[in-house]
């Protein structure tokens, strides 16, 4: 599924190394992102999937250094073309946002300033990076951007409350791509939209990304959506990246037990089957138990899982998983008879 250009060898455009973000709570720090590393080449689409509390939104915010108190970035590097976003000066950071790395935020409904015309909000971003853009040029660019996301240019003279949810999400994408960024971070861009609109918006995002040759990090909770869009899928659980693999492979043969149970729990329209959820509850991020965070819910767990935290390791090919079953196992062994369900 990966684009031809993505395969063209080249240095990764985005490298995340051992990123850790903590939230200070009254009960102590909660590690919302706990040692995540990955890298992305131009044109590549990474989907980060996780449930609420898995740290996926924190991850998106950290990539743009938008973490606010009580959250703080504890350590790690976010290298954008070799420059660390987390240590650059405030002025450089402002320059880099939108021009190099852009955000398509979660709540498009609430991400637009309710008292500003759409054209002013688009112009704001452009003028912040190119203050001397002539008016005529600005108007031309705004029109082109709106057309690019499938909106009528007359929308420029409207206020956010005059737009539908799908239109707002498109407007936000127009802003995000206004400076032709090289990395787009899309944080659940369709979470409040109906399925048809969701599909339209995601396809538009895909087209924009293709046109710019930008890398995309798509954050989401819906495996189906991620699978439709991404080339590579990263699965997050309790702040950690527990599996990273190309999309077809991860769906056909997940390596991490959590990924497998998650995929198994998805309803499909291929055949009726008994729906089986994952037993237990996601852990609270404050005072995590020692060992693997998923051990308590894992049907494969053994003694080592409860004492030693597994780190992300290669499991062959371009796949990796954070699980003590590897490297001994070649693939995830079938579940015992207890689950009552055979692998497809």
């Amino acid at each position: 599924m990966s684009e031809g250009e993505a395969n063209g060898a080249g240095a990764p455009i985005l490298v995340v190394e051992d990123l850790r973000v903590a939230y200070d709570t009254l009960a102590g720090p909660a590690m919302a992102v706990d040692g995540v590393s990955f890298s992305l080449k131009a044109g590549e689409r990474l989907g980060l999937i996780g449930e609420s509390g898995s740290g996926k939104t924190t991850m998106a915010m950290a990539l743009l250094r938008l973490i606010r108190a009580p959250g703080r970035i504890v350590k790690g590097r976010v290298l954008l073309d070799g420059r660390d976003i987390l240590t650059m000066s405030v002025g450089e950071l402002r320059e880099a946002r939108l021009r190099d790395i852009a955000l398509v935020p979660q709540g498009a409904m609430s991400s637009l300033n309710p008292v500003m015309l759409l054209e002013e909000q688009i112009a704001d971003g452009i003028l912040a990076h190119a203050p001397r853009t002539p008016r005529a040029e600005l108007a031309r660019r705004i029109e082109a951007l709106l057309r690019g996301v499938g909106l009528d240019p007359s929308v420029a003279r409207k206020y956010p409350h005059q737009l539908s949810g799908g239109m707002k999400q498109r407007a936000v994408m127009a802003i995000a791509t206004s400076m032709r960024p090289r990395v787009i971070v899309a944080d659940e861009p369709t979470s409040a939209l109906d399925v048809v609109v969701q599909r339209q918006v995601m396809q538009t995002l895909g087209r924009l990304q293709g046109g710019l040759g930008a890398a995309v990090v798509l954050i989401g909770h819906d495996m189906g959506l991620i699978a439709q869009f991404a080339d590579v899928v990263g699965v997050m659980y309790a702040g950690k990246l527990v599996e990273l693999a190309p999309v077809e492979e991860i769906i056909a043969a997940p390596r991490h037990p959590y990924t497998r149970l998650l995929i198994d729990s998805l309803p499909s329209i291929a055949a009726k089957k008994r729906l089986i959820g994952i037993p237990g509850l996601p852990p609270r991020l404050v005072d995590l138990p020692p060992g693997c965070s998923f051990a308590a819910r894992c049907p494969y767990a053994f003694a080592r899982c409860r004492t030693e935290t597994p780190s992300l390791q290669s499991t062959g090919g371009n796949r990796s998983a954070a699980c003590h079953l590897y490297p001994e196992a070649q693939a995830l062994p079938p579940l015992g008879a207890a689950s009552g369900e055979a692998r497809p």
Partner: protein
Amino acid sequence: MSRELATYVLRRFAQLLLIVFIAVSVNFLIPRLLPGDPVETAIARLQAGGGQQSVDVQAVAKVYREKYGLDQPLGAQYLNYWRDLFHLELGVSFANFPEKVSTKLANALPWSVGLLSLATLIAFSAGSLLGALLAWPGAGHAIRAIVPALMVLASIPFYLLAIIIIYVFAVVLKVLPPAGGFDTTRIARLDLGTVLDVVKHAVLPLCAIVLGNVGFWALGMRSQMVSVLGEDYITFAEAKGLGPWRIFFRYGMRNAMLSQVTALALAMGAVLSGAVLVEVVFNYPGLGTLLYVAIRGQDYFVIQGVVLLLIVTLAILLFIIDLLYPLLDPRIRR
């Protein structure tokens, strides 16, 4: 859009009329509802308390009876009352018999409106800016030290503040005049000297109202701003790479001001009540002092006139604020 706007303006105008209606009706009904014959009560009071001025009690009583027309049915009295109002026929003053109440009001009104609107404007803008800065993480630490002072200022009634201000600045330091709106020994002429004199007399009452208000606006704005700064559009504005002041004014303050203006409309009544008392303390020649003198002299029609005028003035001010609101909020929804 325009239709929604029209509905909005009409509704606000209806509110204005309703307030005026309530004010007039209250003025009309209360003397008639309370036990006793209002004319007899008033005259008895006038005779008892009117030692300081020589009043032609008979003449007054005659005016009173005519004005009240108690022999007519209540409905007719009420209609007459409204008719008189439309002719600005508010009766005569007893203390300065037979000066018309409307003349007295016309003399006092500019002083009050000038003082009140200037003080509110200063307090509201300064307080809002201060409050927004207090909520702004980039605004430095030192500024937050003034929060307790603001809390104290916001909680003290401002006519008490006025007393303290007079004592400190006019009695102890003697830098500004303690009372009045102008130097009564001056010859009234429109020149620089007169203007300076008026300004000099206005400084302390202005300060009293501003200080009494600024804390309220600052604290209100702070909490509004804190919640606005938590909105997604602020995060997105940051993600766009905008400069901090652009975010502060266009995205932060601009939105926080919406509820500030709503609060302004709700608080104007209290501000006006406080300003009336500040005028009394400073013996400032506005409606407040007129009211106070009238109360002391049992000058009932003047009292009624001032009350009516206060309510109508406020209602009109509110109507203006309401008309400005749609300019601030394109959604015109409240």
